[in-house]
């Protein structure tokens, strides 16, 4: 029942906190002591997007044992899909006032919209792409990877190479995604101007709601038979296979779902930060996202949210107060959490058994196997 309390507490924090901040922003006068300025709203919105990404990573890493070092790629792809819609939405209000072509295409001398930009003038189409593009990429990638039983660190390295390759690709101007500068100068989303305060509050609330939904659905899914099989695969893939399950199918399913969730997080991220560029694909981002999950606690989902928010709060503080020391801080965090806090904060607070992460057992089994076979 403790886990249920955790779920309720998490939902209360996410939804209640978002609602409270929104109310304090909209209902209090600007000079008031309790007034929440708009930049805090968009900052919180950004953290919540990161939390969605963390939930996605926790699904595959915490429950299925797939350490992904490339999830920011799905996040960024969702973001690019949304960014393309937002670019089309600018219409003739751009610098070059071209009603069809985004500014950067006019700038590099294109006179025709590439085919893959068709349809992005419709909001529903963009929403579909937000889920489809990361989902299809994840399916193709996962199908190859899991079918050939690439697992463990090999898979991690390949996911990292994937996001690295995508980063290089999106840096190219001829890809038609704005190259180095990416996409920015968005005007409005589905008719709501992005520079209006109510829009950013609304986006933040939607993000909180999406996060809560993703959290609840993931939590529920992990309690079903499907979730239990995933945990079994994580802890002893060969045994699960011998029991008659097909680990690759389970892994592929959770991998694609996780990519879609990450893509949705990215789509919510772009209108709130106002820019998407290829640096979102940087391998470092994906690894940083993994450490959010590790800090909060693997296989808890609530821990992923907690870790994402805490680490990013710390990052915001460090990069403004002690920018030199941020890399030292995050580097130390990586080391300390993995060495001393393998169960994360939730594991520490909830004590033994709550996270149900049999950290010692596979470790012991692995080292025994290592000793046996060399």
């Amino acid at each position, binding site marked *: 029942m403790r886990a249920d309390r955790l779920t309720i507490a998490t939902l209360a924090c996410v939804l209640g906190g978002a609602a409270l901040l929104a109310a304090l922003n909209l209902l209090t006068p600007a000079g008031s002591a309790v007034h929440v300025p708009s930049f805090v709203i968009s900052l919180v919105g950004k953290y919540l997007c990161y939390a969605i990404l963390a939930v996605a990573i926790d699904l595959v890493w915490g429950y299925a044992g797939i350490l992904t070092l490339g999830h920011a790629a799905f996040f960024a792809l969702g973001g690019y899909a949304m960014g393309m819609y937002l670019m089309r939405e600018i219409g003739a209000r751009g610098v070059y006032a071209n009603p069809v072509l985004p500014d950067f295409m006019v700038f590099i001398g294109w006179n025709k919209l590439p085919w893959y930009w068709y349809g992005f003038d419709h909001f529903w189409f963009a929403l579909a792409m937000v889920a489809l593009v990361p989902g299809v990429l994840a399916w193709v990638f996962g199908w190859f990877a899991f079918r050939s039983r690439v697992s463990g660190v090999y898979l991690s390295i390949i996911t990292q190479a994937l996001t690295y390759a995508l980063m*290089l690709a999106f840096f190219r101007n001829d890809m038609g995604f704005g190259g180095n500068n990416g996409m920015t100068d968005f005007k409005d989303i589905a008719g709501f101007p992005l520079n209006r305060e109510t829009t950013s509050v609304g986006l933040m609330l939607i993000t909180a709601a999406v996060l809560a939904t993703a959290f609840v659905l993931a939590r529920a899914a992990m309690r079903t038979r499907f979730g239990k099989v995933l945990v079994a695969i994580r802890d002893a893939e060969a045994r699960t296979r011998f029991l008659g399950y097909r680990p690759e199918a389970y892994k592929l399913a959770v991998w694609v779902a996780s990519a879609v969730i990450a893509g949705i997080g990215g789509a919510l991220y772009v209108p709130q930060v106002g820019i998407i560029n290829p640096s979102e694909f940087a*391998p470092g981002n994906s690894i940083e996202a993994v450490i959010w999950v590790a800090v909060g606690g693997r296989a808890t989902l609530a821990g992923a949210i907690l870790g994402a928010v805490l680490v990013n709060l710390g990052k915001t503080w460090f990069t403004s107060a002690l920018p030199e020391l941020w*890399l030292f801080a995050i580097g130390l965090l990586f080391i300390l959490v993995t060495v001393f806090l393998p169960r994360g904060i939730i594991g520490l607070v909830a004590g033994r058994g709550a996270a149900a992460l049999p950290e010692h057992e596979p470790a012991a089994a692995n080292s025994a196997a290592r000793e046996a076979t060399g």
Partner: protein
Amino acid sequence: MTPMQSKIAAGGRCLRSCGLVLALLLAAALAWPAPARADPFAAIAATNFDAVADGVRALAVSGNPRAAAVIAALRDGRLYAWRWPRPDAPLFIRTDSGFADARTGAKVSAPPPLNLRRVIVNDSVRAAIETAEGALDLFSPQPAARRRAAEALYQSAAPGALPLIERALAKERDAGVARVLREAKAATLLKSGSGDIPARLAAVAELAARADLSARSLLASLQGQPPTVASAISAAIATIDRRLELWGLLENVYYGISLGAVLLLAASGLAITFGVMGVINMAHGEMVMVGAYTTFVVQQLIAAFAPALTELGLLFAIPAAFVVAGLLGMAIERTLIRFLYGRPLETLLATWGLSLILQQAVRSIFGPTNQNVTSPDWMSGAVSLGGLTLTVNRLWIIAFAILVLAALMAVLRWGGLGRNIRAVMQNRRMAAAMGIRTPWIDALTFGLGSGIAGIAGVALSQIDNVSPNLGQNYIIDSFLVVVVGGVGNLWGTLFGAMLLGVVDKFVEPFEGAVLAKIIVLVFLILFIQRRPGGMFPLKGRAAEA
């Protein structure tokens, strides 16, 4: 033609027709048998420009040992003649200390300045000087100088040079130089548009045999040729294109091997830490970076304390980088990695954190900008081999990468440390029972891998920017190399590095560097799909780790 008439004529027509006039004069001059000819020195001492130009050319091909000095003096405005006509036409070269006789080079007492006039030049004389200076080398005793001169004549393809070339060709004994001269003759002939159709066809064939980019562009630039010549030209261009394609192919192989050598260097250390020990060291790239910075520091120290050794700085940097990176690696193993054995994913995250710390530490100490590591002279320059141009530093790196790999294999195969390393990796408990201190061997193994990474840093400092981000550029590729090659197998690492390098460079010209990377990645995933065995040398339950 009196000097006066000639001067008037030159004043009016020179710019329009000087090329033709020169060519005619030169042809006339060279057609005369040499003994019957007037003294070229006397021609240079004449007062009309055409005669001077004629004299310059005549002097250039005369083989007179004073020719180079006199022509250089004329170019620099240091050549003086008698103001009034004299039958012996004296010429003087003004030197720093006085005057010398142009004909003999002997020092002479200063003639009365009133009797002297400087030999001045105009454009046509200047052109004659240029051709002459090229031509002078054509008759140099050194084949290399003759070859250079012929090559210069080929590149300029100046119409006036044709008789010169023919004369040189008649004398030439060196087959290589003669070939270049024939090519120069062909280029000059075609460019000038002279010559009958068989001569032109022969010239086209000559250029087709040369088969490089300059021959191709020269052929492509020819307009208004008779139909037979034009079709021969297009056929020649097609031949050259095929040849160039072949050379391009070889060049890609070389570039691929060169990139493969870089990857091999970066991955050799990883083949130890990751391949042999199974430790996912994401800070491996930072070990390379530390090696590169060690090179920088060693260079600074040498420049400060022993400038005489600057050229050999790299030789000192290699052991220094090995020791620095190796000790750092041992420290990392003892303080961090040994707590994470058997937990590869955690090792990955912790070492990633470590890599961030190392990067920031180097950035704090040395600053975020690139450090300037100089290359010694013996590593710069290029060697050309047929249609290939191989840069010397890349050749050194290829050799060095092979050397490092061979040394590493030798250590593992025959060294005492290598024997212990293999014993511990094959059966840790048995090795311990035999009295091997396994934790110490772990530390040494990790130190060895890190030290090799440091050595790679020395090599990479020669071809890449020494910046805190140096290592990041290689870490993903290095892991891919080790994974493709098969974990725990140094031959596999060599294979993987060369495969990745060559594939990358072969795709690059068609699709660009970025798409090449992506295609290589897709290729890798497919490769792993086909050859999962190459990925997993571990058997049984350990494969799950």
